[in-house]
């Protein structure tokens, strides 16, 4: 991007707009660097390039001065009522890149549909078919007591398909319950647990990583050791044990999963902050008197939004499987509330799937597609944010 004079800024459509500037060094030219979310400042007289944090208020650049020294120069001011240019520009760029990613769009579409089906669709389908996820259809099992396959109709008393019976798109389960309705209600629990647990994990991990990376020293050592120790835990074993001790239940499952996922964002944020905190925009913020809290929340955290979102998407994918795994072991949300892992376990335990494989295929595919979609969405977001990830 070519440098623009200090009196201009770039608006969301890429046009240059006049900007009221009280510049101390009117010779300097500055521009918004969207990739790195900061201003790049060119000094005509010194032929040097500097960067400053993207903030409302004075734009301060650290300028090399003399031999190895540096000098602070105010090159312009973004008035308080002006929106900070980066948020719009970056969103614009992000949107443009994301819209070109077909796989990402399909994944996002699938997930939106899934959430809609889980939140709104589940009661609608339950209403249309006339039964809730725990209702055992009188004609839901065949004469051998086996579940009905997908695309079949409820049976009459003699065991023949009843043309007036309920149409079972995905068949029935071990107890003759409608799998479609159970799958939709199960999506509620899967998504609720995965989203909430990831949220809790971020609420623990991001502040810890931020503080550890920024302050360093003893705090960093404690947090780093805690992360390493947590990663040394046999997660599934320990989570299963924990779930067994504190008992099953929605909140307990969320707590257990969050306890075993906070260290991913913590580690990532810590290492990112360690490499960011010596950059000039932080020095500039320090030099204009910003305190630690302000630097962390207003200067460092905004830099990390993109990688955090990308990470969170991956953690959600993991946690969907984590919840299913716990439910599979009988340690998730207690029955009769449906959950995908529990439906899968229902089909697998006792070897029912060997006779009627669809009882394991249907919930397994639901799980796999959801995880796949979150993983693909994460990749697409990473590409669109142009951040470097795993």
């Amino acid at each position, binding site marked *: 991007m070519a440098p623009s004079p200090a009196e201009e800024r770039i608006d969301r459509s890429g046009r240059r707009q006049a900007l009221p500037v009280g510049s101390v060094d009117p010779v300097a030219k500055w521009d918004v660097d969207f990739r790195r979310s900061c201003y790049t400042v060119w000094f005509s007289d010194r032929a040097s390039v500097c960067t400053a944090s993207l903030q409302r208020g004075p734009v301060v650049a650290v300028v090399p001065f003399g031999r190895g020294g540096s000098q602070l120069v105010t090159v312009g001011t973004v008035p308080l009522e002006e929106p900070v240019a980066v948020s719009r520009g970056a969103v614009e760029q992000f949107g443009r890149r994301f819209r070109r990613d077909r796989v990402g769009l399909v994944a996002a579409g699938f997930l939106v549909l899934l959430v809609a089906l889980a939140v709104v669709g589940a009661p609608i389908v339950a209403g249309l078919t006339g039964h809730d996820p725990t209702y055992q259809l009188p004609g839901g099992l065949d004469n051998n007591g086996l579940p009905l396959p997908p695309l079949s109709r409820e049976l009459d008393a003699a065991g023949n398909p009843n043309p007036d019976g309920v149409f079972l798109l995905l068949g029935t389960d071990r107890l003759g319950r409608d799998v479609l309705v159970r799958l939709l209600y199960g999506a509620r629990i899967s998504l609720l647990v995965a989203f909430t647990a990831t949220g809790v994990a971020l609420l623990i991990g991001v502040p810890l990583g931020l503080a550890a990376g920024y302050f360093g020293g003893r705090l960093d050592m404690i947090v780093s*050791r805690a992360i*390493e*120790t947590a990663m*040394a*835990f*046999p997660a*599934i*074993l*320990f989570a*299963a*044990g*924990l779930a*067994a*001790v*504190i*008992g099953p239940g929605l909140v307990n499952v969320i707590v257990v999963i969050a306890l075993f996922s906070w260290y991913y964002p913590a580690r990532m944020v810590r290492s990112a902050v360690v490499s960011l905190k010596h950059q000039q925009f932080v020095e500039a913020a320090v030099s204009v008197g910003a305190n630690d809290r302000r630097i962390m929340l207003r200067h460092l955290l905004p830099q990390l939004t993109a990688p955090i979102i990308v990470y969170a998407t991956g953690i959600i*994918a993991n946690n969907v*499987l984590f919840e*299913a*795994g716990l439910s*599979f*072991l*009988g340690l998730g949300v207690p029955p009769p509330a449906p959950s995908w*892992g529990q439906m*899968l*376990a229902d089909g*697998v335990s006792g*070897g029912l*799937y*060997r006779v009627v*494989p669809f009882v*394991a*295929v249907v919930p*397994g595919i639901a*799980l*796999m*597609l959801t*995880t*796949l979609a979150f*993983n*693909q969405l994460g990749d697409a977001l990473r590409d669109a944010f142009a951040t470097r990830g795993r």
Partner: protein
Amino acid sequence: MLRFTIRRLGIGVLQVLMVTFLAFFLFYVISSVTGADPAQRVAGKAATPEQVARVSHLLGTDRPWYEQYWNFLAGIIHGDFGFSFLQRIPVSQIIFPAAGVTTALVVGAAILWLLIAIPVGLIGALRPRSAADRISAVIVQILISAPVFWVAPMLAYLFAYQPSQGLFLGIHIPHITFFPILGYVHPEKSVAGWINSLMLPCLALSLGFAAFYARFIRAFVLEQLDEDYVLVARAKGASTGRILRSHVGPIVAPAIVTLLALDVGATLGGALFVEVTFALPGLGFIAFNTIQNLDYPLTVGVITFAALMAVLANTFADIIQAALDPRVRA
């Protein structure tokens, strides 16, 4: 190097201590708060309070928690993980045979996933965006997202149960049983049977890892192939095979070894889902069966053992890394 090794080992010991402490704390202390009393469980529902108190005294659960923890730690140093509440035999007598089963499973799976991942990753890296690369990328993405507790029963159905019925993918085939559906054959009984009983579980465990490793190898090798040293080697007339073997390999291999050490270490603590699905009496299977019985010494023993394996692998990987790369030692 010696200083680094000592420091790293010290950290490893600290980590194991932390894990055992938390495991102990969790199962002994929280359970007493939530009212899940192992003595009650052992004594049975009909036991009088006096009987429960006596059982509690015998198990040692009436002592203060720090005393119990101290006894537990002192025991571990002697290789004694305590006494199972329910099976009434030393925990080590249960854990060590189970660890053997898990080790066989994990090592077999690791060999398998490397055998799959290395060729797939290299093909992807050498011919990026080719048909083979695209197809393998799709399969990799699917396998990364497929939960192992789903892959395992599906494999069992396709390759063990259906063939035993004379079917494969619904097509009639000659009646040959390739693999047992579940169960474990001890190598002392029959080595062929042992290998046969482990093949499907190893495959089930390896597929997810294979996909992950293939993606990792592809990305890493692709990045290296862009480097100048590869260009120089090409200019000097080195063949692709030679470039991979003599130039790229030595750079990529340590990273894979590190990753491998971590993953094998983490799975040695019990490949829970695979073991449960195929009824292999490994650590995960034992843990699964004991966790709900509140058999704490056994549960804590398995967790401690698993953590020990993970930390050992972690420490080992770091030391290897430091030996190969002096920059890490700082």
